[in-house]
């Protein structure tokens, strides 16, 4: 494998958790709910998946535990913002603070443990194609799953009846309620889906990307996933593109640090964060406002009974 190929491979690995988490958040936001707790759900997913994977020596159980942890956190959020019509921004922040603390508790006994790499799934024949072969056809299952998920989310939103209902509720919950669409139920599942995705993204970080647990290991990826949704104008295809651009930025700065260009490592470490700000800025300059934002995004829903 050449260095170039290796870099491309790591880009895919770095992009996948961003993609998965952002897709989940995209569905949540399309239903009209802004969950700022992605970082918290993701880090919980990482801690729980790693703890379960080490305890039971099973990657599969680890992944399941990660998704469950994310979904449970999301359920807590749903209780607050749907049940109590609580402030969504505040609740999301609280979820992040809680997740960072709780994951530290759960992960504490597992600091220092390591997991073996997850074996890539080789698609015979295709993976022998030079350069792109290994890039596209010799990845771990999660990578394929994340691409499939992008397609499925896109198809679900634009081609199914249930997706239409979800978009309508996100667009205008008052109208949706007047038509008798189940605003609460749809939002509840959308929030849960977002949580499970964030949990899965966390699991991927802990079990595939780093293969160890360290407190706060998500390092702002949840927030970048949130930014990606805005950047993608709430469209799954653009989330894919955005996730890979950010993944590439992250990996390239790591390689640049290793290469020691004489640029302080901190400057390079700041690249993903600065890139997020610049991406949001460019988007706003081009469109003047958040294009494609669901009409009811972030607005608490209190029906007139």
């Amino acid at each position, binding site marked *: 494998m050449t260095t170039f190929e290796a870099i491309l491979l790591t880009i895919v690995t770095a992009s996948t958790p961003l993609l998965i988490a952002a897709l989940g958040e995209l569905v949540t936001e399309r239903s009209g709910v802004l969950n700022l707790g992605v970082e918290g759900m993701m880090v919980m997913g990482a801690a729980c998946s790693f703890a379960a994977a080490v305890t039971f020596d099973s990657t599969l159980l680890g992944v399941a535990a990660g998704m469950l942890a994310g979904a449970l956190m999301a359920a807590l959020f749903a209780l607050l913002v749907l049940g109590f019509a609580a402030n969504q921004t505040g609740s999301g922040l609280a979820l992040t603070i809680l997740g960072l603390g709780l994951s530290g508790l759960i992960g504490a006994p597992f600091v220092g443990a390591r997991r073996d790499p997850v074996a890539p799934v080789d698609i015979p024949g295709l993976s022998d194609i030079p350069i792109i072969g290994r890039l596209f056809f010799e990845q771990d299952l999660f990578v394929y799953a994340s691409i499939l998920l992008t397609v499925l989310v896109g198809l679900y939103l634009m081609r199914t009846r249930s997706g*239409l209902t979800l978009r*309508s509720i996100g667009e205008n919950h008052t*109208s949706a309620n*007047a038509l*008798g669409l189940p605003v609460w139920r749809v939002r509840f599942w959308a929030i849960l889906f977002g949580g499970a995705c964030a949990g899965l993204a966390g699991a991927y970080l802990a079990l595939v990307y780093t293969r160890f647990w360290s407190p706060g290991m998500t390092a702002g990826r949840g927030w970048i996933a949130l930014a990606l949704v805005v950047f993608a104008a709430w469209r799954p295809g653009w989330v894919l593109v955005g996730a890979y651009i950010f993944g590439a930025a992250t990996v390239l700065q790591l390689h640049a640090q290793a290469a020691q260009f004489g640029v302080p490592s901190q400057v390079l470490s700041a690249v993903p964060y600065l890139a997020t700000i610049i991406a949001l800025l460019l988007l706003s300059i081009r469109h003047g406002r958040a294009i494609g934002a669901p009409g009811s995004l972030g607005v608490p829903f209190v029906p007139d009974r």
Partner: protein
Amino acid sequence: MKADVPPSGQPLVELKGISKRYGDLLANDGINLSIEPGEIHALLGENGAGKSTLVKILYGVIEPSAGEIRLEGRPVTIGSPVEARALGLGMVFQHFSLFDELTVAENIAVALSGDWSLSTVREKLGEISGTYGLALDADRAIWTLSAGERQRIEIVRCLLQNPRLLILDEPTSVLTPQEAEHLFTTLDRLSAEGCSILYISHKLEEVRRLCRRATILRGGRVVATIDPRASSAREIAALMVGNAVGDIRTDAPHHPQGETLRVSNLTMPPAGLHGQALRDINLAARAGEVVGIAGVAGNGQSELFAALSGERLADHAETIAINGKPSGTMGIDARRRVGAAFVPEERLGHSAAPTHSLSENTLISHASTEVSRSGFILMNAAKRVARSIVQSFDVRTPEGDPQARKLSGGNLQKFVIGREIIRRPKLLIVDQPTWGVDAGAARLIRQALVDLAREGSAVVVISQDLDELFEVADRMAVIHQGTLSPLRPIGEWTKEAVGLEMLGVAQAEGGVHAI
């Protein structure tokens, strides 16, 4: 009634003793109502009489506190609009339940129960449009459509479910007179096919045009069920309002003097994604007169208001002159200081902060007057001003200094109008002054506007209610797609002429068959 009444003579829908309580307010009080098959039944009443509450109960949007609904003699519980539709009830809301960013076909599909694919919807849409003359383009996004077209979507949504009862809540409030006539034809045809229609309105004329039976609500109760064609307009009005309706006094001498407001060639791009641009608007209001701006909702009224109030600034100061001062580039507060006052359309959230007390709400437009000194609020002064508004404008409030949201629509509107008039402005600009306001408050507000003008101020009233403009305005113009028709004395306008201007066909052809 129509020919195809079932032999049993059983009513299609019967409401028995329906009540709905919101806290201390009894919005519906023991309402009985029956609708025959194929009948167009009117539900008449002033704003706040409980009409909307009643139909929302019938459609399953809200639950009644007490009472029974019978469908063909069978008691039914309607727990949600989905259940209502399954029972054959369809409803066209006053505020459309549409989704701006979705297409016409998507908007229709999402409201249908069962498995409707977009292609089936498209097909059916074509059929229905043809049969009832409801032209619609399936792939257009809602925000590009006019109010009339939006209403068609609502109607088509209902018709696709083959309803037995179609409920329409104030359907003509967003239509031009011609569009309204077109709607009536559609309704007549539906009724002839055996579909019952419950028609909610506060306009007598159209009820007499459409219905043989009308149930009149007042204060949440049924006061009478009558044949509207057999009763005089005055009788019906008296039943609706409770006591004889007074007319607005406009008899005071009217000697318009110099121009208080002059708008010259005002052009403005749309503010938001779906806004309306203003195109070359010219307008003048003289001291002592009321100028009316008519138009169907969404034709640039709120944009015009924003431009006149300074919530949006013009490019050149000279575009808008208030009291002779070029003010186009002044902010709203600066315009207030040169003698202008403003009342926007939306009460809760725009002219008033719902969760703030009335005295705090006074600060909103009085900030630079006696209620503050060097940046500090003089709360006692604000309370005094609020009290005097409450007294002078007959605002009925809960005790003390209540939050704005605790006032009824009519009382809050009296408060915000009073808040501006008490400042004795030289120019008052009001957007939809009596929208959703009960008859008594509407009368008081209109009188206050006329009185202010007669005392020497210029008043500009932007309104969708033509009757209101004919009542208060001295001169009037019509706004259509961001363009303003010439300003003419009220006597030179007829309703038909206004309707043609609303459709934008007045100069183009002068024809009558607009649609």
